[in-house]
């Protein structure tokens, strides 16, 4: 630990936030809302232009659905093709309360599991709506020709995921995200053909244009040519994913970033619960300093894989030579009713504990075994192959080891971020006309997301929520026509251009990657799987220094008007260097443990997260005040009218 002085922060508090939750009983709220909204008449819809930023599940489904309704949509993505958005990498599945298995599932149960899984830090009304529309998502995707797994009788197949005791997860082998995204992408491309969606690939949103207090456009950089471009519209939908890459090493794609969301934050959108990050328990361990990203092994593997470490820290025998009595199946031992299927935060933390005890396995000792030997014995290798073959192959390609013959080695890695831009029930941020969908918002997963719920939320927001809430906004707001000739476009463009020029002008001695790695390590150590007030204060004092060094000593090669990957990354790392500090401030402010946010000072005698409902039953939404590290806290008090918060127990 360096000797830099620890910074104490004093949190300034602003006005509380209201989420505009409809009145009435929980199960009627969404219907009541839909009955009460204003709709834009079909002839008027074509007068509106909606800018959709990001083409993952949330963005592509929103772009397609809005275009079908008649709106003009411009869809932006940083990739060379919208089909490459990181939703594509989701493996395991998508939840829906279909109860096709007759095992007692219902909308209520999916709602309850999600609220409980989120450790009672999510908004009831949003989560219930999510559970309600989950059933429509599956219908929609099947109608689009998504080839879900099926039984021999031709009906859809389900599997179980962590944090649930029913089988409600629909899947397409280990490539569910890919299949759902290709479905949504296809629907969007159909609208491109119809002339209702203008596709703007290889564009990175670098700023938001706010006119008369409303989101009215974006500034984007064409990543092929380096041109800075201006786009005007009547609303902006941010569907830009999460900020897991703040940690440098994560399961996110290399290009996943917080830039669009962060720049909206700096224009007035509050950023909520940034410290709620999810560390996924089953990833392939780090192999060395060259590591550029981490690879997830789907949580579905925990259906058939048993997690264990040797009982004795000195036991260094190869796994096959360790007899049953010398193994500790610690999840089954500690959580007999959920066993290997405890939620992600619990599984990750326990992996950390056994490694901290010196019982980790493999060369780095930062890994635990996930063993399929029993399942292969019970089901036969063919059945296991049918379920997981692509995952096993992926593991073998990366590690050179065959999991049919020896147990996988796994370790937790940053995977998903529950925090994001604060949105109300309409998915609208604190900037009117700016909406955030999918992982980019904060709303549905509380302090911990359950497996197979990210795909559900992305598609719920895009297919079934935003078509209603956006219409209501447009019909109720006075939106004057604006063009890119407006002075706000010029001013914002200049700021963007100045930043690009500045990044290229520094020509220091450290690469963008070096800064990113350094920041990532700090966040992993202090704002990772377990956090302390001391550590957080430490990192809050270290990040501004690193940021300062970045702006004095980064070396970005190449030109502005060209394809320049390092320049793209430099802008993103600059934003992570600001966000990282806010993550730590948020974590320090929240003096409790809940879900993925584990403060060592607040735990039960047996090491479980200890919430403080009295003081922290709120979403912490932070307002940017003009300089990083000096935010104002706005609380949205969470009211639990239908579920009584209790200590989560998976025993």
């Amino acid at each position, binding site marked *: 630990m360096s000797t830099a002085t620890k910074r104490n922060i004093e949190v300034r508090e602003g006005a509380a936030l209201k989420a505009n939750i409809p009145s009435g009983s929980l199960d009627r709220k969404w219907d009541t809302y839909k009955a009460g909204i204003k709709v834009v008449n079909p002839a008027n819809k074509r007068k509106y232009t909606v800018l959709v930023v990001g083409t993952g599940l949330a963005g592509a489904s929103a772009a397609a659905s809005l275009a079908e309704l008649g709106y003009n949509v411009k869809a932006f993505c940083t990739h060379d093709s919208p089909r490459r958005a990181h939703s594509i990498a989701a493996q395991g599945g998508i939840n829906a309360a279909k109860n096709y298995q007759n095992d007692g599932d219902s909308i209520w149960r999916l709602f309850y599991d999600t609220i409980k899984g989120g450790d009672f830090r999510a908004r009831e009304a949003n989560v219930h709506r999510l559970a309600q529309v989950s059933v*429509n998502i599956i219908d*929609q995707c099947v109608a689009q020709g998504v080839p879900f797994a*099926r039984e021999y009788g031709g009906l859809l197949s389900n599997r179980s995921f962590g944090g649930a005791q029913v089988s409600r997860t629909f899947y397409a082998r280990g490539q569910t995200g890919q299949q759902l995204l290709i479905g949504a992408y296809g629907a969007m491309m159909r609208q491109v053909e119809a002339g209702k969606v203008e596709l703007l690939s290889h564009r990175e949103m670098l700023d938001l244009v706010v006119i008369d207090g409303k989101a009215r456009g974006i500034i984007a950089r064409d990543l092929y040519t380096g041109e800075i471009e201006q786009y005007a519209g009547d609303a902006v939908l941010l569907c830009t994913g999460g900020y897991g890459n703040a940690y440098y090493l994560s399961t996110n794609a290399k290009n996943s970033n917080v830039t669009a969301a962060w720049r909206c934050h700096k224009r007035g959108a509050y950023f909520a619960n940034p410290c709620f990050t999810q560390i996924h328990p089953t990833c392939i361990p780090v192999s060395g300093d060259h590591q550029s990203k981490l690879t997830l092994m789907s949580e579905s593997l925990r259906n058939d894989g048993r997690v264990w470490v040797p009982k004795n820290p000195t036991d260094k025998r190869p796994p096959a030579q360790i007899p049953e009595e010398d193994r500790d199946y610690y999840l089954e031992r500690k959580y007999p009713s959920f066993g290997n299927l405890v939620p992600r935060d619990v599984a990750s933390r326990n992996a950390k504990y056994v490694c901290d005890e010196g019982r980790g396995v493999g060369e780095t000792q930062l890994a635990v075994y996930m063993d399929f030997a029993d399942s292969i014995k019970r089901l036969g290798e063919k059945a296991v192959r049918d379920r997981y073959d692509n995952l096993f192959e992926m593991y073998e390609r990366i590690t050179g080891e065959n999991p049919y013959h020896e147990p996988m080695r796994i370790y937790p890695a940053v995977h998903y971020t529950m925090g994001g831009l604060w949105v109300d029930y309409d998915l609208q941020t604190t900037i009117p006309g700016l909406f955030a969908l999918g992982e980019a918002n904060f709303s549905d997963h509380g302090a911990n997301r359950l497996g197979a719920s990210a795909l559900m939320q992305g598609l719920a927001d895009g297919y079934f929520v935003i078509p209603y809430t956006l219409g209501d906004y447009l019909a109720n707001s006075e939106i004057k026509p604006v063009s890119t000739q407006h002075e706000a476009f010029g001013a914002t463009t200049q700021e963007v251009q100045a930043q690009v020029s500045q990044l290229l002008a520094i020509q220091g001695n450290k690469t963008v990657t070096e800064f990113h790695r350094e920041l990532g390590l700090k966040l992993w150590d202090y704002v990772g799987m377990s956090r302390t007030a001391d550590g957080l204060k430490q990192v809050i004092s270290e990040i501004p220094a690193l940021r300062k060094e970045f702006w004095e000593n980064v070396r970005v090669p190449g030109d502005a008007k060209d394809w320049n990957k390092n320049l793209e990354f430099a802008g993103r790392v600059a934003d992570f260097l600001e966000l990282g500090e806010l993550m730590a401030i948020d974590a320090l402010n929240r003096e409790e443990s809940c879900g993925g946010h584990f403060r060592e000072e607040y735990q039960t005698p047996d090491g479980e997260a200890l919430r403080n409902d009295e003081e922290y039953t709120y979403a912490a939404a932070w307002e940017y005040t003009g300089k990083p590290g000096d935010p104002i806290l706005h609380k949205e008090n969470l009211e639990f009218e239908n579920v009584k918060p209790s200590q989560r127990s998976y025993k």
Partner: protein
Amino acid sequence: MSKMTLHLKIWRQKSRNAEGALEDHTIENILPEMSFLEMLDVLNEKLIKAGKEPIEFDSDCREGICGTCGLVINGVAHGPQHLTATCQLHMRTFRDGDTITIEPWRAKAFPILKDLVVDRAAFDRIIQKGGYVSANTGSARDANELPIGKEYADKSFDAAACIGCGACVAACPNASAALFVSAKVSQYTYLPQGHPERYRRVLKMVNQMDEEGFGNCSNHGECEAACPKGISIENIAIMRREYVKAALRAGAAVV
């Protein structure tokens, strides 16, 4: 862990219309557990530190599913390991002292943007013509109302596993996109949801494929061998049957 020294011959090209050439680099201390792209990351960090321009290549998920990456390695699209995208190729496949040639996808329909990066927007334009089922949001019936035999669902999935990387085009001596297009045609041919538009779809997509300047398929089978997802050329046979049926039924009027 044995560290390797490798000799690289890498394609450098300033822009779309500039002339390109292979450039030599020697890189040391490469570990077998590094991925191929991590090896290039290491090289680029060195180049930046030395005040030189890094080699531009594209990648994203680095787990073989987004289809962004794609390099021709020693003349083979995605390199020597079967069923493996470039990002999942690891250096344990190579030996100390090896010379490795690294080039971009080469096809008229995929112009080179810079160094190893190509423009594959042609694939999007083909999909745009009919690579979907037209089902507006909200109009679907219950997902289990229409049973679909597991064999058909599985076959459909096998075709749908295509990641759109373009290795099939890069591997084909004619730079044909037949494997890519046929995978999409097959996915929906196997499913009843795809049937209402099946003939329209195949005619329009094939037509667009030709417009984009991809070559014709002459059954070399290189595409299947290079495909990181193991998409079968059986799909090309299905696409041809569908195309012939469509052409006979509807004539050119549908196009």
